[in-house]
Every structure is written in structure tokens, then in C-alpha cells.
């Protein structure tokens, strides 16, 4: 008896431990997930600016400077993703600069709006076109500043291997500066005359959110994508919310004839289970092609509206169910018609709960990617959309496109930044719904 009891006890302990383990494992994974995304993406919100010095003479040999910004030696104002550059190159961010034997062999200038390129020998690639200027003799008095995220390095290496023109796979280092960036380097006759190692001073900046993408999605911010997502979501909700609430009123208040109700319910359940990519196909076949709205905000919003409709109906119906029967009876007893009862008593009472459901639907619509792939999304459509018939950028699609179609490394960090914004957006939307529900439950009179 005693032994059996202890076996039971152990079994119980182990069993309960299993349940505990389940939640701990899920918790660990999801926390890890959030932390990693934020760690990686956080850098886009950090504006790097600067102080402090090292000055010395170094001979430039086989130096690779990655992701530098060419600036004026006197006046500069740096911002991440290289926006403000004065002096030799105006508004350009130089990346992948390779200096070999005192000559800049290759330099990519991103977002080039240079009105003056002088005193430099560089082959400048701006996407497709290449400009060749200057002659090697003029590589003098050129100023470099390097930023790469936050930490940059100047590497003087005697041996290095290049792969793909940019990556260093093996390096034998003589001198490495990290955790800072360099400015005011003046090179004369191949010798660094002046150099300043600047330790970055980091500041939080919202530039990333409120700026347009630049240089073929390698720099700048995500504002158009944010606006695109906003339009799509708001329009989808404007379309789906009234229909959803009215449909819920039908199902919960009238529910007649019974046969129709059954069919409608099955239809709603099916709609709720249809994969989002199938919605995308439907939107493409019907809105884009058949109704000829083209790839546009309208098509995308309509598709998303159909997608969130079952969510809104279900949530609204649940909300209507919580309104007590007594309230209805009282209303009818006072001589109200059924419509009056619904509009003046039931709907106001259920509205907060309906809104909670609607907010969750907003979060869903904002985060969906597959339905807008073929109906609304454009990878690069800078500037704000002019009408509902133009395509738009959208945040979730942007993340996907940057990760899969993008080539440049910087795009990964932009994708991370965008996903932080999207994550915070959706979490904020959903938590406001949860908080709202909490308030309603506390305040409820019945």
C-alpha cells in the first residue's frame, strides 16, 4: 500500500513536471525569439555621432575600408545610413571602398546625388550606372569616415583574401580599430597624415520610421511601407467592420430561417480556415483581374477585408451573446421594436466587446503578407501612394522582400528594423484590445 502510494506520488510529480516543462520550453523559445529580433534590429534606431581621437601617421597599404561615408573634413553631420554628407561628395554614402596601393580601386557610392566629385579617383557604382572620374594622382586630401553599424574597422593588413569583392575571409592583421569610426583621415602621398578614431556616441533616433527608403532599399527608412500598411488595414476594416457586425446581429438576434443560419455558419467557419495564400489567389483572380482594379491598395484592402470578416463576425457574435436576456426583455417590454432594441440596447451594451474583437482583426490584417503578395504590394514604391488604385509598399511584405530578394547586407538590418516596428505595432494593437477587455470586465454592471 505504502509503496503503491509513493509510485503514484512520483508519477504525479513527473506528470505535473511535464506540463510545467511545456510552458517553460515555449516561454524560453518565444522570449529568445523576441530578444534576438530586438537585438539585431535595434541598430536602425541608433544614430551614431561622435567624439574622440587618435592621430598618427600610418602608411596606407592594402587597406580596406568598409561602408565608409565620405565627408568634408571640417563640417560633417553623420546619421546612420549615411544621409548628410557635405563637401566632396554631397549626399552619398560610400560603401565597399577598397584602397590598394594608395589608390582607391573601387568604391560604391550609394544614394549618390553628388554635384561635385573631385580630388578623388573612384569608380563609382550607383546601382546600374558606373561613373569614372578623376585620375589617380588626385587621390589626395580625401577624407574618410567610416561607419558600419556602430563599429567600424580600419584594417591594415599585409595579407588578405577577397571574395565577392567585399568580404574578407582571411586576414592577417597588423592594426585593427574596432568599436569606433574614423574621421578626418588625410592621405598624402599614400601616408595617413591625420586620423581620428572616434568612439561612437549612440543616440536613439526615429529617423528610420519617418524616412523614405533610399538607394534601392539599402538605406533610409520605412515610412512608405508603414503608410501602406496603414491604408490597407484601415480600408479593410472600414469595409469588413460594418458587414461583420450586421452579420453577427443576424446570427445572434434573428437567426431565422434556421436552415440559412446553418449554411451561413458553415460558410463562416470555412472562410476562417481558408489559408491566407488562397485569399491571395482569390483577390488576384477577382479584384485584380476580373474587376480590373490592378495591383492596388483597393484590391489588397478588399482581399484583407474578406480575410478578417469571419474574425469580426465571430468576435461580434460572442460579444452580442454576453448581453443578458433581461436587458432585451426589458427593452421589448417597454414597447421597443426589435430593431430599436438592437440599436439602442443590445448594440451599445456589446460595443466595447465588439471593438475588442475588431482590434484583434486589425492586428491580423496588419501582419498578413500572403494575401497582399499578388494584390497590393510593391517592393519599391517610394513616396506615398497617390490614390487607392496605385500599389503600395507594406511592412510585412517589405520584411519578406528584403530578406529574400535583397542582396546587400545592410538590407538585413533594415528587415530587422522593419520587423521590430511591425512586431511592436501588432503587439500594441493586440494589447490595447486585451487591456480594453480587462476594463470592460471590471466595469460591467451585469
Amino acid at each position: 500500500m505504502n509503496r503503491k502510494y509513493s509510485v503514484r506520488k512520483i508519477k504525479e510529480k513527473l506528470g505535473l513536471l511535464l506540463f510545467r516543462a511545456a510552458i517553460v520550453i515555449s516561454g524560453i523559445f518565444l522570449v529568445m525569439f523576441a530578444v534576438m529580433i530586438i537585438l539585431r534590429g535595434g541598430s536602425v534606431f541608433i544614430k551614431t555621432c561622435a567624439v574622440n581621437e587618435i592621430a598618427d601617421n600610418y602608411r596606407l597599404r592594402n587597406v580596406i575600408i568598409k561602408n565608409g561615408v565620405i565627408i568634408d573634413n571640417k563640417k560633417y553631420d553623420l546619421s546612420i545610413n549615411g544621409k548628410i554628407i557635405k563637401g566632396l561628395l554631397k549626399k552619398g554614402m560610400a560603401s565597399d571602398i577598397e584602397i590598394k596601393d594608395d589608390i582607391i580601386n573601387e568604391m560604391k557610392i550609394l544614394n549618390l546625388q553628388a554635384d561635385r566629385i573631385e580630388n578623388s579617383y573612384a569608380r563609382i557604382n550607383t546601382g546600374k550606372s558606373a561613373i569614372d572620374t578623376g585620375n589617380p594622382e588626385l587621390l589626395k586630401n580625401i577624407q574618410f569616415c567610416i561607419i558600419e553599424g556602430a563599429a567600424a574597422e580600419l584594417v591594415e593588413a599585409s595579407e588578405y583574401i577577397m571574395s565577392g569583392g567585399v568580404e574578407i575571409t582571411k586576414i592577417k592583421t597588423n592594426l585593427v580599430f574596432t568599436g569606433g569610426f574614423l574621421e578626418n583621415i588625410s592621405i598624402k602621398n599614400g601616408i595617413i597624415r591625420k586620423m581620428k578614431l572616434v568612439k561612437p556616441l549612440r543616440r536613439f533616433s526615429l529617423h528610420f520610421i519617418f524616412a523614405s527608403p533610399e538607394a534601392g532599399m539599402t538605406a533610409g527608412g520605412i515610412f512608405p511601407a508603414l503608410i501602406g500598411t496603414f491604408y490597407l488595414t484601415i480600408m479593410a476594416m472600414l469595409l469588413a467592420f460594418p458587414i461583420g457586425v450586421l452579420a453577427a446581429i443576424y446570427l445572434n438576434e434573428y437567426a431565422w430561417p434556421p436552415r440559412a443560419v446553418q449554411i451561413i455558419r458553415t460558410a463562416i467557419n470555412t472562410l476562417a480556415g481558408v489559408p491566407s495564400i488562397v485569399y491571395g489567389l482569390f483577390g488576384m483572380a477577382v479584384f485584380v483581374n476580373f474587376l480590373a482594379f490592378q495591383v492596388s491598395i483597393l484590391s489588397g484592402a478588399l482581399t484583407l477585408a474578406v480575410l478578417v470578416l469571419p474574425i469580426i463576425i465571430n468576435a461580434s457574435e460572442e460579444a452580442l451573446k454576453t448581453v443578458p436576456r433581461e436587458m432585451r426583455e426589458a427593452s421589448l417590454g417597454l414597447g421597443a421594436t426589435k430593431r430599436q432594441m438592437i440599436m439602442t440596447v443590445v448594440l451599445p451594451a456589446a460595443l466595447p466587446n465588439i471593438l475588442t474583437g475588431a482590434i484583434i482583426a486589425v492586428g491580423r490584417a496588419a501582419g498578413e503578407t500572403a494575401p497582399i503578395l499578388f494584390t497590393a504590394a510593391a517592393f519599391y514604391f517610394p513616396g506615398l501612394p497617390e490614390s487607392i488604385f496605385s500599389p503600395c509598399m507594406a511592412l510585412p511584405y517589405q520584411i519578406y522582400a528584403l530578406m529574400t530578394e535583397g542582396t546587400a547586407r545592410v538590407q538585413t538590418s533594415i528587415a530587422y528594423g522593419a520587423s521590430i516596428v511591425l512586431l511592436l505595432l501588432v503587439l500594441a494593437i493586440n494589447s490595447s484590445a486585451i487591456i480594453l477587455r480587462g476594463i470592460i470586465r471590471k466595469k460591467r454592471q451585469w
Partner: protein
Amino acid sequence: MSADRPLRKITAWKNTTEKLFFILVLFAALTAIVFLSGIIISIFSQSIQIFQHTGFWKFISGTAWHPDQDPAEYGILPLIIGTVTVTIIAMLIGIPLGVGSAVYIAELAKPREREFLKPVIELLAGIPSVIFGLFGMVYLAPFVASFFNLPTGMTALSAGIILGIMTVPIISSLSEDSLYSVPRSLREASLALGGNKWETIVNIVIPAAKSGIITSIILGFGRAVGETMVVLMVAGNSPVFPKNIFTPVRPMTSTIAAEMGEAPMGSMHVSALFGIGAVLFIITFTSVIVTEYIRSRIKKNTGNSI
């Protein structure tokens, strides 16, 4: 307290406004049917071309997917196998973690813990899938590659793991609801008869909440089958038969997403992609019907006692 049955008695039915309002809400509800038939008609009418070309059975049992070869081959069995593989892995992770954590929250957690965990789980259910995809691409895939010493981490396994984690909040949230609504008296009866906590949970509470748990699992399954972005980003995009779970696969959803942009308008290829959509639709429709059947059966068996 709730209105279980609507008030059927219709007052002042003669009133025109009343009628118009009824017609308005009826039409709003009918939009659900309109949209559903819209989906069915648009998907199936576009895929008729491919079903006539290859035949439905050959389409779903064909072993080669080469839409851009000449002659093109449209067999989606490798894609179906891809979906099945990824979904099975996802369910192997999602069901134990989801149901386990639901049991913890409903039965074992202290009230304050529950108050915290419940909304957190709901929040997690709302995380956009593309962010999970990003995570899988950048962290999980390299980890899988180095851990199992594979040439690429973009495998069925990685996609399955991510999908599994994604379904945890869905399964957990719904299962918890149904576990929590199991009447206290059942637990008390079991405890009074000498059952311990584990025995009560396994023998009494879980069977009582069976229908809700099964529904949540089917919902999670539907999510895993229909999820596009994660598999598009993580599964490796290789439309061939997977030899094992460590090879890249391409599930049905991601095939549509990946190839629709390249396929010329009105071509057989587009029709084949719509055909995949039709198959996906059939799968989800079946699972909805199965859910409703299970629900109604369990209701019949257990009666209204619970």
C-alpha cells in the same frame, strides 16, 4: 445570463423599417456565402484548365513538378509530401507544448500567474508569421545546419520547428479555454474519491475538455497547412521529394507564392498554381467539416451534462 436562444417573437413585423433592417442584416450575413462561393468559383474556374490538361488524379499524384521545362510537368505530390512533412513536425512540437502549457495555465498556475500568462499567450498568437519566418531564416536555419552538419539549414525540419512554435499559442489558448470551463464539481469529485492532481487532470479534466482540445488542434493543423510565409522563407524551396527531414522541401503554399510572380498570365502554369490553391481549399474545407462533425458527436455523446 446569456441569451441562449434569440427572442423569436418578432414585434411590429409590419413596420417597413423593421423589415428593411432584417433584410440589411440578412444580406450582411449572406456576404459570407457570397465570398465563400467567390473563392470557390474563382479558384476552381482558374484551375479547370490544368485539371483538363493533366487530370485531377494525375495532378495530385504526379511525382514531378517542372512547370518551366518543355514539356512541362505538373505533378504536385512532392509539394503535398512537403506540406505533410512540415505539418507533421509542426504538430509533433505544437501539440505537446500547446496542450501541456494549456493544462499548466488552467490547472496548475496560481491565479496571478494565470492572469499574466493568458494575455501573453493571446499576444503571441498575434505575431505576424513573416517575423517568425525572419527568425527561422536568420537564427534557426544556421543553427540546424551546424548542429546536424548539413550543407543548408533551410530544411523541412527548420520550417516544421518554426511552424510548431507558431501553433503553440493557438492550440494553447483554445485548449485552455475549454479546460478552464470544465466544471469545478468534476475535479472535486475526482479529488474526493482519492485521485491525485495528475490523475484528476489526465482521467477527468482532459477527457471532459476533449472537444475543445481537438478543435484547437485542428485549428493549429489548419494554420500549419495554410501558413505561407514561414515555409516560403525557411523550408528551402526545393520542389522535389524529400529524402528525409534534413532536406529542403517546398510545401504547396510557398509554391504558389514563389511562382505566381514568374508565371505568365493565363498560362498553364498559373492554372496549375490555382490548382494547388484548389487542393489546399479542399483540405481546409474537409478539416472544417470534420471539426463540426466531431463537435456534434461529442455533444451528442456527453449530452448537456458538461
